């Protein structure tokens, strides 16, 4: 590890998830092993084969005033709720505006806006489209709104890499601070994709669980009976800051954002590469980037989406690149899969696991898959040791994107 590199720390956390309207309620529910997955009650549910999902626990309309909410896509609403919590949590830092940045992405963008607006267009014509339709549907909209909200003039960016989006945003944010461009970056991901077209499209790939009789047991990473992912929604956003800037203002620091590793499969647009080589490369690279050895990593928040193809390959890759010793968990068993938001909330869970020295459980692992040879936090939270330790959050996305982000205790 180069010793002259700028160290990046995490000084604020914000989230809205199927388990809670903020970080504290979400974290508490995770440690309790609660599922945020519920039956869908919309009238369109009969048109799709999957009849459950992880809706946010607190509707954004309860938090964002109506005049503001009507200009925002639902994903942008989630992103603003999470970024405002993270910003407050960081103590609303005073930052030179040109040294303040934003990296917030979404896997799909304003899909609900697109579909609703197209209905309006067909039924009533173009004059009835909201003049905010374009900023609501563009996938960089959330980043733009957050930039306006906090006055960020150092650069506003939106990563787009499907389910790796949130982690890639945090990785890009780390690099923005390391490169010297910014002192503070608000980074993460958001997604609002619970719509029959999306569910139908994912179902057409045979990617989703259809365990309609037991929604809360449908997301079951590493379990032999897993039959696909469960769609969730929400956002997870962190405040990244140079250690120097954070120390100078006496900020509370959760963890060090120690590094990021990227790779790409170049294999199949939507299936994991079966040897796990790409995933291994991302993890090897994060170790190198963070100056860590496999032995330093005591916990991995796995991408593990509960699909038959992906979960076991990931555990083999963890064993090969890091070792069999880290306590591995798949929090998607409780939140469902937030797509572009996943890397955001799961980075927060990884940071809190280090901060509180406790790993949230993976629920619904009744019958562990034979191929899993790493230590899974099955059913119960697990304690992490004292001393200087590190953890990794994995996020992978359709397109073959592999991202691993490393965090360490102070």
């Amino acid at each position, binding site marked *: 590890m180069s010793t002259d590199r700028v160290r990046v720390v995490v000084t604020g956390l914000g989230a809205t998830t199927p388990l809670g309207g903020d970080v504290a309620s979400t974290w508490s529910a995770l440690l309790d092993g609660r599922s945020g997955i519920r039956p869908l009650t919309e009238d369109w549910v009969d048109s799709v084969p999957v009849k459950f999902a992880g809706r946010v626990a607190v509707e954004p309309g309860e938090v964002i*005033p*109506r*005049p*503001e909410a*009507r200009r925002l896509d639902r994903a942008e609403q989630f992103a603003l709720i999470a970024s405002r919590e993270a910003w407050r949590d960081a103590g609303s830092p005073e930052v030179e505006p040109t040294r303040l940045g934003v990296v917030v992405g979404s896997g799909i963008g304003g899909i609900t806006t697109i579909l609703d607006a197209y209905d309006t267009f067909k039924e009533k014509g173009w*004059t*009835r489209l*909201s*003049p*905010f339709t374009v900023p609501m549907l563009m996938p960089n909209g959330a980043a733009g709104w957050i930039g306006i909200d906090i006055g960020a003039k150092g650069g506003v960016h939106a990563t787009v890499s499907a389910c790796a989006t949130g982690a890639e945003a945090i990785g890009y944010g780390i690099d923005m601070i390391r490169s010297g461009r910014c002192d503070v970056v608000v980074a993460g991901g958001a997604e609002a994709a619970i719509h029959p077209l999306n569910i139908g499209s994912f179902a057409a790939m045979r990617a989703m669980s259809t365990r309609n009789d037991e929604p809360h047991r449908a997301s079951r990473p590493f379990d032999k009976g897993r039959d696909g992912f469960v769609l969730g929604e929400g956002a997870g956003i962190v405040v990244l800051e140079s250690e120097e800037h954070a120390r100078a203002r006496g900020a509370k620091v959760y963890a060090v954002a120690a590094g990021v590793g990227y790779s790409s499969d170049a294999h199949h647009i939507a299936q994991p590469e079966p040897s796990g080589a790409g995933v291994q490369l991302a993890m090897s690279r994060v170790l190198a980037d963070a100056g860590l050895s496999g032995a330093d990593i005591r916990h991995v928040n796995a991408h593990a989406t509960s699909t038959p193809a992906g979960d076991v390959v990931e555990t083999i890759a963890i064993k090969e690149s890091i070792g069999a010793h880290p306590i591995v968990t798949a929090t998607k068993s409780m939140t469902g899969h937030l797509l572009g938001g996943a890397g955001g909330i799961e980075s927060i869970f990884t940071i809190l696991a280090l901060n509180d020295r406790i790993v949230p459980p993976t629920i619904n692992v009744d019958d562990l898959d034979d191929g899993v040879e790493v230590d899974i936090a099955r059913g119960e939270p697990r304690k992490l040791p004292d001393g200087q330790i590190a953890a990794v959050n994995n996020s992978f996305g359709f397109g073959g994107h592999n991202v691993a982000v490393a965090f360490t205790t102070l």
Partner: protein
Amino acid sequence: MAVTEQEILAGLGKIINEITGIPASDVTPEKSFVDDLDIDSLSMVEIAVAAQDEFGAEIPDDQLKHLKTVKDVVNFIQG
């Protein structure tokens, strides 16, 4: 039956409150949309469309830009 100025003003107040969050009681005839109410051009489009639904009076884009105050819109709707 023609709507009265008071009815139009009340209806506009409701629309503007819905779209911008500005209290309906602040929507008084002499107020300028840009200078007093801080309403941007995209919100003015939304207000014009909502006013068309409410009062049935279409406000073409080339007219909209000349409607500077609340009173201007009330007068336009009254024809």
